[in-house]
């Protein structure tokens, strides 16, 4: 009776399968479960119980990580609804979006060339606003209108922006040296 990998993460935490999740509730349920299943709680128990604790704690961590991050949560919800986001092979994007991407990238290159931390910080703040507004539309598409294929399009766009966000973070770290 190993913890089935197929167990629905929302059910695991006894939370409604929605994009707009009560994150505090998620935190509480996660901690409640880890308090019971973490391998440290089984250190003095039998090997069977140790192995089970390892499997359960691994599952709880994976479920928590998935539901905590908005993009991962959206992907997971879409998968439950039978929609794969296919980010590896579906690169069809609206033309305006792609042009915007080129502009973002050019600004990042310019800030790097100037070695300007202030410019990077401004870029990062603007990107944050952009990501937040996409997350708002994602919430509507997933929880209210239930337009899953359209939501998958937004997820693909968000994946681009999050990659950009990581690259800006990397650049900031390098400049701070």
């Amino acid at each position, binding site marked *: *009776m190993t913890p089935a990998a197929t167990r629905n993460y929302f059910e695991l*935490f006894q939370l409604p399968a929605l994009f707009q999740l009560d994150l505090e509730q998620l935190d509480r*349920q996660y901690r*409640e479960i880890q308090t019971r*299943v973490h391998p*440290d709680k089984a250190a*003095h128990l*039998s090997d*069977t*119980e140790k192995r089970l604790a390892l499997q359960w704690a691994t599952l709880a961590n994976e479920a928590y990580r998935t539901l905590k991050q908005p993009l991962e949560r959206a992907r997971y919800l879409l998968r439950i609804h039978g929609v794969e986001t296919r980010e590896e092979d579906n690169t069809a994007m609206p033309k305006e979006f792609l042009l915007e991407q080129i502009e973002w990238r050019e600004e990042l290159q310019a800030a790097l060339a100037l070695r300007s931390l202030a410019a990077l910080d401004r870029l990062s703040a603007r990107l944050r606003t952009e990501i937040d507004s996409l997350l708002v539309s994602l919430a509507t598409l997933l929880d209210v209108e239930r337009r899953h294929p359209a939501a998958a399009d937004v997820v693909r766009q968000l994946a681009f922006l999050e990659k950009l966000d990581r690259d800006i973070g990397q650049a900031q770290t390098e400049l701070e040296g």
Partner: protein
Amino acid sequence: MLLQISEPGIKAPKPRRIAVGIDLGTTHSLVATVRDQRPLVLEDAEGRVLLPSVVHYRADRRVDVGYDAMVWQNDDPENTFVSVKRYMGRGRDDLPERNGVPYRFADAPGMVQFETQAGTVSPVQVSAEILKTLRERAVRTLGDEIGGAVITVPAYFDEAQRQATKDAAKLAGLEVFRLLNEPTAAAVAYGLDQGAEGVYAVYDLGGGTFDISILKLTRGIFEVLATNGDPALGGDDFDRTIYDWLLRETGIPTPAAGDARRLLTAARAAKERLSEQATAPISAPLSNGTVVKANLSRETFDSLAADLVKRTLAPVRKALRDADLSIGDIKGVVLVGGATRMPCIRTAVAEFFRQPPLVDLDPDKVVAIGAALQANALAGNRAGDDWLLLDVIPLSLGLETMGGLTEKIIPRNSTLPVARAQEFTTWKDGQTAMSIHVVQGERELVGECRSLARFELRGIPPMVAGAARVRVTFQVDADGLLSVSAAEQTSGVEAKIEVKPSYGLNDGDIARMIEDSYRHAQDDIEARRLREQKVEAVRLLEATEAALAEDGGLLSADELAVITQGMQVLRDAAEGADWEAIKKAADALNEASVEFAGRRMDYSIKKALTGQKLEELSA
């Protein structure tokens, strides 16, 4: 042993098990325990708590450890190992300072080996000697065999370094409950002592390693948000800058090993003195009778050390970024490690975090105390009101792909335990084996990451190229140690895995080393195996009794009978002197309890979540 009849709902009294926490440090090591609910750092016969992490090998294979070994370091530097922690899980090419040290390195692949007058030894064996000495200290002080230990490691230790530490413990005859990250141990000691809540940074500068961890403390949960560090930066490097300065200042040529050791010792003494006073006179007699004299001011030292101090702040920034936090979010900074006594470190930390660091607890003892508290909890000596540690993997795990590139499979700072599965396919018709190279690190090129191990998968059913789908699961446990399993998906065949650790020892090496060590000791290996199996049997019987007392109601009468019979078989076997029979009975009891353990876990989780719901309703 009397047969205990326990009814469901009645808890059997739990006997106390002796558990210790060990801080296996670069420059010195400590052992602590919990007695009468208070942490206690154990002393040697002379009343000293610090054991210098120094090991000396004599020609007759006798070994000196600690202060007894220190007296040899000037006159027999080749056979006297200091700061051996720096070599744990490291290959020859990883060593930053191979020329400046007096050791003779053996010409062997994998982890470095030292040639001594007592034969070739690995850093694992040297560390095991330190652990053995601490174990003996604990047994002598506490008057009983040790049930288990928590051993601390730098948070930034990679998998190979962790595995090497665990192997050393095995060699020293210690059951390892857990490898615990040093900053996390410090946070436990500090958090429980001060009742701290909020986000804290633990700045840990030891003798040879630097770690920074950002932790969130909430209602008994210690959650590591991010960790970073430099595995080759510590107090030793500050000694070395003074040593280099001494050579420049006095114009003496690069000395031989013994004199180099004398000068380094003098450099360290000067560094320590500068934590208390503004200048430190240095006077070091050399082997040729001359005396090296100099005067080091704190100002000069601060400028010598400035680059090293700065090197600690880059990992701090990275950790903050990974945790998505800014300096203003940090409620307090805990200092750990003897090297944080240096005023230049305290000033730099205070400036960076814009607040004075917390120094309430002795930076030398705080890690051992935290480890002892955790060991006591893991031994089951506490009731259910204890705390929980959620730690992270410090460096990303990846696989080698085409063209020597790394593909990350588990990103750094993932909460442990963690697992990821990856599918591979065959590229040749009838291919039945494949090789997987696992690396650790953040770089894109495999050559710039740490090679952990090569896994050979065998027994893949022959199919046309690309038809086999081998699903490989990488599991990292709470200690940060990796295990790999694989199965072919279309046939369900489990692939056989052969592990070739890049810098570690395989199980055969360990067994050989243990047997080797008994050839030179009075104790014999059969007696040790019997003792270990008996301890294990008692532990399993107690755990099963407690489980039946708590949740026996989840079993049918028949199922209960199978388990109680298994317990009786084990009890009988444990009375005898055949360790293999005890092991067989223990394995059988474990096997018989699989279903029961699963039901208990499900029941416990349900109880946890519904219990919480009820509380919320009444709130």
